[in-house]
């Protein structure tokens, strides 16, 4: 086997628009993700984390550099890179089970179909329904489910055809805190079982540390990789680790760095100066 990483981004650049309204969304982004790795990307809004993920997924073109998956340049979306979105991606007219089996009705998966592969796929759909705790709602429609249950369906659907990489774009961003914790342990459990390679974008630093083997911090204007943190916690995570001093220290470190890159430190300074000046005029 070659030692090359599964996903290789080499000085990827992305420019939106043209002329004076031109925005550099990504500049010189280089990132390798190894097979089986769980990488999280955090950063202030506008840092290009979603753009990078979508470029890897082929949903967005990049202006310069290369994105290679299994050594081949990415050209448009494909079933080897399944994506889980924040919301509105399920098909409301299909039942939970049919949503999860949706891939089976696409020609990409039926071209070389044999009866045994159909059986295997149906078995896999059943296994995923059970694994995700969806057995009791398998015939329900998505609009009858809570946000957390909907995201379980979305994850199961993305996993059905055994993608090489699972791309997750703030998948738990719309969920409440309790549901999110449950989903964290679920996705860790599933990715361990499936030995999935996951690239996970979030704005929640705690989520990024808890899930990621590595945390990639991106900075805005222009969107770029600022720093990468190895998470020095055991591979098998549990909720108590969130109280671990290592975890807390890393969280503070990353949060501070995000504030710096977003220019929030200077805003705070400015606020202090302004309020000082106001106090001066009042006094």
């Amino acid at each position, binding site marked *: 086997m070659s030692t090359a990483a599964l996903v290789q981004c080499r000085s990827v650049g992305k420019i939106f628009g043209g002329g004076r309204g031109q925005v550099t969304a990504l500049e010189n982004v280089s990132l390798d993700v190894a097979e089986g790795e769980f990488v999280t990307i955090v950063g202030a809004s506008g840092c290009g984390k979603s753009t990078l993920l979508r470029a890897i997924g082929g949903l967005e073109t990049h202006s310069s550099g290369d994105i290679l998956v299994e050594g081949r340049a990415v050209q448009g*979306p494909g079933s080897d890179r399944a994506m889980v979105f924040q919301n509105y991606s399920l098909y409301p007219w299909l039942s939970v089970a049919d949503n999860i089996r*949706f891939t089976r009705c696409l020609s990409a998966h039926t071209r070389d179909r044999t009866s045994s592969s159909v059986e295997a796929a149906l078995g896999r759909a059943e296994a995923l329904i059970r694994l995700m705790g969806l057995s009791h709602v398998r015939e329900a429609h998505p609009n*009858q489910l809570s946000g957390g249950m909907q995201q379980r369906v979305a994850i199961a659907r993305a996993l059905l055809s055994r993608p090489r990489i699972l791309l997750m774009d703030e998948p738990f961003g719309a969920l409440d805190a309790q549901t999110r914790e449950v989903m964290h342990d679920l996705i860790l459990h599933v990715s361990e079982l499936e030995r999935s390679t996951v690239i996970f974008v979030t704005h929640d630093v705690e989520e990024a540390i808890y899930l990621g083997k590595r945390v990639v911090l991106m900075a805005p204007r222009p969107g770029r990789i600022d720093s990468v943190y190895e998470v020095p916690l055991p591979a098998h995570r549990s909720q108590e680790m969130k109280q671990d001093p290592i975890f807390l220290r890393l969280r503070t470190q990353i949060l501070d760095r995000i504030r710096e890159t977003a220019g929030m430190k200077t805003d705070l300074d400015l606020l202090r100066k302004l309020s000082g000046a106001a106090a001066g005029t009042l006094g």
Partner: protein
Amino acid sequence: MPPSPPSTHTGSTPGRPRGQGLRALWTIRAPISPRSYWALAGLGLLLPLAAWTLLASFGAINKVFLPGPLDVLVRLGHWWSEDDLAGDIGISVYRVVAGWALSALIALPLGLYIGTFRSVQALLEPLTDFIRYMPAVAFIPLVMLWIGIDERSKVAIIFIGTFFQMVLMVAEDMRRVPTAQIEAAQTMGATRGEILEKVILASAKPALLDTLRITMGWAWTYLVVAELVAANSGLGYAIVKAQRFLQTDKIFAGILLIGAIGLAIDQAFRLVHRLAFPWLHARSGL
């Protein structure tokens, strides 16, 4: 000051009020019981009828200006027994449905492409926007010149009145399909054709049925205009003819009949909507 006992707060319980009194009916966006709904709907229809009856029975207004409900009913009876009301209804329904169906036949695929591909949108949408502002009535002389004065010309007027609005509404329905639904299919390896058929079209179906229902209403409003074109039958024609003889009761009868047919068709569409898309109407029980 002693705390006031809770009994002084009757009727002002926080949260959702229980269906009692007028307060429940005046709570913003609060649901009302089916009984209240149907009672109010009946009231909404009966009140104008009562007002009309009263106004006409006082005799203060000349029957030429305002015939009573009974006069209209009598006229309707005559129309049925002597003037082939059934035939008028039949031909009018045929013209409206034909014009509307023809426009749906073209608007659905065209709207799908306008709403899905920016290139087709750029090519056709400004043109459609331009034409839809043109008054359908003004096309009558052209339609007579180009098509003639037979059935096809009436269908053509209804088509002209309906089609251009319908295309834009269909395109909008397609554009409203959430991008995440499309992109999810793309990352599952769906081809362009599969996304058109299995995602965009499937997702837009409920909205499309609503668009068809609404444009059916518009098609009916063009009926009288269409039957100005050398017609000798139909509800619209009957209204125009009655105008010539100052048969106000027949004008009333024709207008009310068109309203009743429209209401029936609208309800039929809603029923089909409930039957075809049960998941939209299902109660969350999980």
